């Protein structure tokens, strides 16, 4: 999925996530150069996956229906008043994106870390089908050992998801990319 986050001088926050599903979508390219998506893969139907997980009736294929989506552009603002922290966040990586967003929000709003640090810290994701707890390369061996001691089956992977963000505190605004992404960029007007 591709992410766009904007906090403009007009006091609007825009968070957008778009997708073609698989890389290059269906791989079908029209003569005009439009790549067609493969989004119907996000529906659920019996015997689709090797792990034979139960299909979701709520997410079954029906004409005109939109499939389940983990595209989660997220905005945070103070619950009361105007003063405080505003956030715009986006994530890729499907279900791993939900895990990533949760942990970034926790870092910023609970542990009071700055946005750059919050995006950079290691993240985990429980893969429910395999019952493995995936952790990214930022995790230390001590952390992995602790989790294993608690009964988690840990699998280390390079990257789980990219979470980008923008933060506004009163009139100070900053845009920050996930350091795991080689090409993303955040720019701020000072």
């Amino acid at each position, binding site marked *: 999925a591709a992410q766009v986050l904007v906090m403009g001088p007009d006091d*609007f926050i*825009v968070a957008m996530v778009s997708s073609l599903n698989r890389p290059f979508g*269906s791989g079908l390219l029209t003569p005009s150069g439009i790549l067609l998506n493969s989004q119907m893969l996000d529906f659920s139907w019996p015997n689709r996956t090797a792990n034979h997980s139960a299909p979701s009736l*709520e997410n079954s294929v029906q004409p005109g229906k*939109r499939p389940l989506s983990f595209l989660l552009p997220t905005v945070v603002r103070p619950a009361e008043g105007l003063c*405080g922290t505003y956030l715009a966040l986006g994530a890729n990586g499907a279900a791993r994106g939900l895990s990533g967003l949760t942990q970034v929000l926790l870092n910023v709003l609970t542990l009071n870390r700055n946005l750059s640090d919050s995006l950079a810290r290691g993240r985990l994701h429980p893969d429910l089908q395999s019952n493995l707890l995936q952790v990214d390369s930022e995790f230390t061996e001590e952390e992995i050992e602790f989790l294993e001691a608690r009964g988690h089956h840990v699998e280390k992977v390079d990257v789980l998801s990219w979470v980008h963000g923008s933060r506004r505190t009163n009139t100070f605004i900053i845009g920050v990319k996930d350091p795991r992404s080689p090409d993303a960029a955040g720019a701020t007007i000072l």
Partner: protein
Amino acid sequence: MAAENEASQESALGAYSPVDYMSITSFPRLPEDEPAPAAPLRGRKDEDAFLGDPDTDPDSFLKSARLQRLPSSSSEMGSQDGSPLRETRKDPFSAAAAECSCRQDGLTVIVTACLTFATGVTVALVMQIYFGDPQIFQQGAVVTDASSCTALGMEVLSKQGSSVDAAVAAALCLGIVAPHSSGLGGGGVMLVHDIRRNESHLIDFRESAPGALREEALQRSWDTKPGLLVGVPGMVKGLHEAHQLYGRLPWSQVLAFAAAVAQDGFNVTHDLAHALAEQLPPNASDRFLDTFLPLGHPPLPGSLLRRPDLAEVLDILGTSGPAAFYNGGNLTLEMVAEAQHAGGVITEEDFSNYSALTEKPVCGVYRGHLVLSPPPPHTGPALISALNILEGFNLTSLVSREQALHWVAETLKIALALASRLGDPVYDSTITESMDDMLSKVEAANFRGHISDSQAAPAPLLPVYELDGAPT
């Protein structure tokens, strides 16, 4: 003669002394039948000349002023027998007083004019602040998956485009620079929040299933017929809808920004180079290979790639709007033909029936903050449920990171299981009930009670349905 001179000076000062206007106007009156002074009173010009004479000694000026004030300070005029001054019934300064009156009127006019002008200017400035375009370029930020698209978003902001203008241009740019992850043939979701009004809108342009798509067909041959996987693309209608609601620059201008990127070319990103080297679609067509591997092999990061074909499409969309994409024109026919040729069932009617949805996001309060996220079929409610569960743990900087990670892992297992129950609420009314449960703090406390501080749950607390079976 001296008295005449003094009277002459007195009249001059009486009218124009800056010392005390009220004192001077209470000077003793001269008799009506007073003989005309040998030296005539100075005319206005003479007086001006006197006052304005740079050679006049300022000390003598002040001295004479003091002298003239002395009689007026006496309360008993008759006791001043030796005084040359006599009571009079006619104000010798009547002409001057009338002049003063005129001058008072003039002053009133001037003051009134100044106040009116100042009020007008103030009102105009206040209206400009609230209703006009910002005159000072304030702060802002743009983040995207590609630096060139971030720069484009910043450029749109610098040209007084709205935040949504910048987002639309940047999103179209990503469709050119990152074709492995998004594009005109895809879909997405945009969340727009107005800080001042505390209003949010979610524009959902997720792809929808073609009218003729059946589960059996997908079950049978989804992996051999890529055309079956194609949903009705929502990108163009969604971005256009967002622009209609919040755009400031003309639609054609916003699209022209992105068209220029496609026309002029861009540097291949590391991510695109990697995808072209290792994640090519199975049975990629010659057209695909010619477009993305023009030299016969994957491009290196940083090499220039141009997309004049997409520039032309964006020009058409800029001129004709989304109708060119959805209403049976050449673009629609091409997409339908391409998908059907690959086993798909999408039709022109599917395109013309498509509409982007504008709705309200779901929200939850987490530690004094309002968290806004997309409603089903997106999994925003599961995200808020995870936060609600975590809110009840004693998560502070004093708690060890390892303990916090354990709580987070257990919470996410529940949240992901909840997410697997979601789908399109238009087709299943129970999803709205599931969503309400997920947003409930009471339900979150119930889930939290099942999480052990020291042990991972041996089995999922909730039934888990299929989640993202295919890589995205």
